[in-house]
């Protein structure tokens, strides 16, 4: 297993993420040789920029996974809250108000997920799977099936920015640091990990496990909204099919690649970051090689399967 006595932070990090870091390096080397366009400042900035959305979703997912659950509805929440915000923007609602409403909707979806899962003691995957369908449908209904274009200037400036790299990645990093702090340094973070480690033990010491469960889904919903803001700023539009193809699967795969477990108990934020980077590099590299979108879907799907197999093998050890 992992490090025993408290080594230096760097030492432990290297131990735990050895495989992931090596994979990241290998992947980058591969694509550098496979395509002349890959290794450039421009492309690296691009990768970071595009990673932002997946990173925010993955951060929320780390909370859910650590508690022993899973949230399949994040992609739909991303789309729906985007549509809501865009509709409000287009109808003249002040930018900040519209954003707050969208955030409340996202939190509301997470709240429903958490309540149903904890109160009826159902498996998270089926509840969030149903929610995925429901919210996706809502997104289609509210948008009429069409994208909504024209985001307010202030919104674009904050979430997209003008520079090469864009503001998205910084926002994502900010959220990442906040998440890491909460998970490592607060009582709440301890309870999330404890819940995933052993629900029975956590319950027996008097922790309100249902509150913790609901909270992590709310966090996941919130992250979906933030990711949605970045998406809309990037596209200058809100799309009802946003997050449909691979983003939501990446949000699950990235943390698992980074060492988080489907069983729960682990909250490796840095692992999720590395996982997101790996997936983004793969996507970018394939793009640079001229490989079509379709192959990319195969690649991402295969990576998910591989990550899951890895996780299950890891648990045996």
């Amino acid at each position, binding site marked *: 297993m992992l490090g025993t006595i408290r080594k230096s932070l760097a030492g432990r990090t290297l131990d735990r993420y050895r495989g992931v870091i090596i994979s990241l390096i290998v992947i980058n080397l591969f694509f550098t040789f496979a395509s002349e366009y890959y290794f450039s400042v421009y492309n690296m900035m691009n990768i970071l920029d595009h990673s932002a959305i997946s990173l925010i979703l993955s951060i929320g997912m780390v909370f859910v996974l650590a508690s022993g659950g899973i949230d399949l509805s994040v992609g739909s929440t991303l789309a729906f809250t985007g549509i809501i915000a865009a509709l409000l923007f287009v109808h003249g609602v002040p930018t900040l108000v519209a954003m707050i409403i969208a955030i409340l909707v996202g939190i509301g979806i997470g709240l429903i997920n958490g309540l149903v899962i904890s109160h009826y003691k159902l498996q998270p995957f089926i509840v969030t*799977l149903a929610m995925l*369908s*429901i919210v996706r*449908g809502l997104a*289609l209904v509210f948008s009429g099936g069409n994208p909504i274009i024209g985001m307010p200037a202030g919104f674009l400036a904050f979430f997209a920015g003008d520079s090469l790299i864009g503001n998205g990645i910084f926002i994502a990093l900010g959220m990442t640091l906040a998440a890491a702090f909460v998970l490592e340094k607060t009582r709440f973070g301890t309870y999330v990990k404890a819940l995933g480690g052993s629900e029975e033990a956590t319950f027996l010491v008097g922790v309100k496990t249902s509150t913790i469960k609901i909270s992590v889904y709310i966090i996941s919903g919130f992250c979906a909204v933030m990711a949605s803001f970045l998406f809309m700023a990037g596209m200058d539009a809100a799309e009802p099919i946003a997050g449909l193809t691979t983003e939501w699967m990446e949000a699950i795969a990235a943390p698992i690649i980074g060492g988080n477990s489907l069983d729960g108990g682990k909250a490796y934020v840095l692992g999720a970051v590395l996982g997101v980077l790996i997936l983004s590099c793969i996507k970018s590299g394939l793009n640079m090689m001229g490989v079509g979108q379709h192959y990319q879907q195969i690649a991402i*799907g295969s990576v998910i399967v591989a990550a899951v197999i890895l996780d299950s093998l890891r648990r*045996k050890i």
Partner: protein
Amino acid sequence: MNKSEIKRKSIEFFNSVYSGPIIAICILAVLLSVFSPQFLKVTNFINISNQIAINIIIAVGMTILITSGGIDLSVGANVALTGVIIALYFRGVPDGGSPLVGIMIGIGAGVILGAINGIIVAYLKAPPFITTLGTMGVFRGFALVFSGGRPLMGINPEFVGVFSGFIGRVPLQFIIALMIALLGAFVLDRTSIGRIAQCMGGNEKTLRVSGIPVELYKVMMYVLTGVLAAVGGMVLTSMMEVAEPIAGQFYELDAVAVVVMGGTQLQGGKGTVFGTVLGAVLLGIVRNGLNMVGVPANYQQLFVGLIIMIAVVSGSRRKYATQI
């Protein structure tokens, strides 16, 4: 029947798992026939039966799989991929190919796709829902790659005739679906495979200790699901006379929905194909109703999700009721 017998049978009926869907069907049918004169027409029923045929075929496989404690979210992608592969065969062979070979290729594809899922879940002990989520992406990707992202025409007309068309006024695909349902019910209730599926969902350890090769049977369940999804793909390709790489989207949700509505529990152990068929009929009527009201097709997913949620929540309550 005297009064007390009627009372006893009524209580039995209401307690049975079928009462929910049957009552819902009756209520909906009444509502729809009141609100829309089109509903009670024979052409409409034919329409409904047409729509639900593929769903039933896939859901039968899903019923047995869920009963055994598994699940397969890649069936929709399977449908598309199988269609694409068969279309490529028919287009690639100079004389248009033979329908029999087409069928064999389709079933072979189903076996392979199912086996991939089954081997990963059974031998590598990966959790089914997320594994099949991943393979869903992979299969869909291959469908897109093989077809170049475009719909493929040129399906052998004899092949089309095998799976679609009419017998009298009844759609052939519906009859096929019913036959598969009958077969599925038979397998689940009266064969050793079905018995083992029920045990696997209830208590895998018991099976193992009794010397039954659990992993092998698990793979069998996924292969069965894969084959039936492939059959669904063949039916769809015949009905549409084209193979589309984006076909089958949300088919997996529909299948899970009708299985759960029909009373089969997600945790496994108890399964009913008859319930699944009822669920499919119910979903078909719901869709039909939505169509009549004018709700576009892609909004309907919203309702499917709601149905799954309601079915799963009420299923959990029933579970607590019987646990004393």
